[in-house]
């Protein structure tokens, strides 16, 4: 699996700071609402995620986890 984020949907208050912070513009506030009644953040195109963590650092509710793809170990010449 590639880079992606996980949003704790019921912690999100839909402030949209991550939407602004994402340099790839792949986070949006979704149409669904969470338990609190807010439109929570969703990553719309994980394939372009660079795992820069800007969204997670920006999130005042600490609701975003960034999952970095496991890199294949570089092949080293013997």
């Amino acid at each position, binding site marked *: 699996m590639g880079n992606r984020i996980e949003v704790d949907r019921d912690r999100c*208050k839909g*402030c949209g700071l991550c939407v602004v912070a994402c340099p790839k513009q792949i986070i949006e506030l979704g149409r669904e609402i969470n338990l*609190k*009644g*807010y439109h929570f953040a969703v990553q719309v195109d994980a394939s372009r995620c660079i795992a820069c963590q800007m969204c997670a650092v920006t999130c*005042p509710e600490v609701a975003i986890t960034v999952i970095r793809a496991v890199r294949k170990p570089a092949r080293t010449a013997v």
Partner: protein
Amino acid sequence: MATEKLLMKGNEAIAEAAVRAGCKLFFGYPITPQNEIPEYMSKRLYEIDGGHFVQAESEVAASNMIYGAAAVGQRAMTSSSSPGISLKQEGLSYCAGSELPVVCVNIMRGGPGLGSIQPSPSDYFPATRPGHGDFRYIVLAPSSVQEAADLVMDAFDLADTYRNPVLVLGDGLIGQMMEPVVFKDYEPRAFDKTWCASGCEGREKNIINSLYLEPSVLEEHNLHLFEKYAEIERKEVRVERYRMEDAEIALAAYGTTARIGKTAIQALRAEGLKVGMIRPITLWPFPWAAFREAAPGLRFVLDVEMSMGQMIQDVRMGVGEACPVHFYGRVGGMVPSPGEIVARVRALAG
């Protein structure tokens, strides 16, 4: 302790400030976007001696519980958001009639009806033209988390000084936003509590009541209330004049809208337009005089609200015929951008 800077959500800062101001009793009922206030209180109040939290069965019940708490001389608070405040108005009117010092926080959301849960300060009318009967709330309108914490502490002292309900009027943005806050050292002052129903051994009993069936007695009571309100109007007006020294154009805004307006003013000043702002901090008593004094030197006032024009009535009352008063508003939980205000001022300035 005093210099400790904390990053807190507005609602939590409001709750913590209340506790530090000696509030030991909180009665609440859930409603977004103020839920963090009761949530915080339900934990925090049990860390202090004599602290209690009750989730009431309804908003009406909660507002009558603060009535009871204040009647026995305790500092008590309740909080809600717009639709819930409609219900609390009943108990608060009783508190005003019985001259009880209580604090109520309204973290406003969109309306009318159930409206929305987004920031929408559209309860200016019910705050400044309150529920049934002839009375006033003292209304404090913070525009940052820091100011919310400071004003909540002041709210308890104002309530006790004048034995009257005090409303703290924030909105979903002030309540949900996280900002640095430094709690000021709260110094408890002594207030006269000899009127309380706190046990009458060795003295005449005190009766806390708002029912006056004899019209002449009720008239006398209401006149007494309005002597008190006249004193509040003389002594307690709070207003921020932002960059008004050389201003030719003034914005009028409070709370969330004011902080957006300040950003707009920086942009407008960079373009060479001399714009300032008059920001009422007490919505009642309203700083009519600040507008009356400034208006003759202004080209116009732009009243910016997140409602369809409520405060503008008071702004017009202050400005009178001295200069035109224009309006810009967004509603329903839509938050205006600084750019929108800039564009509006630019268009009006010609």
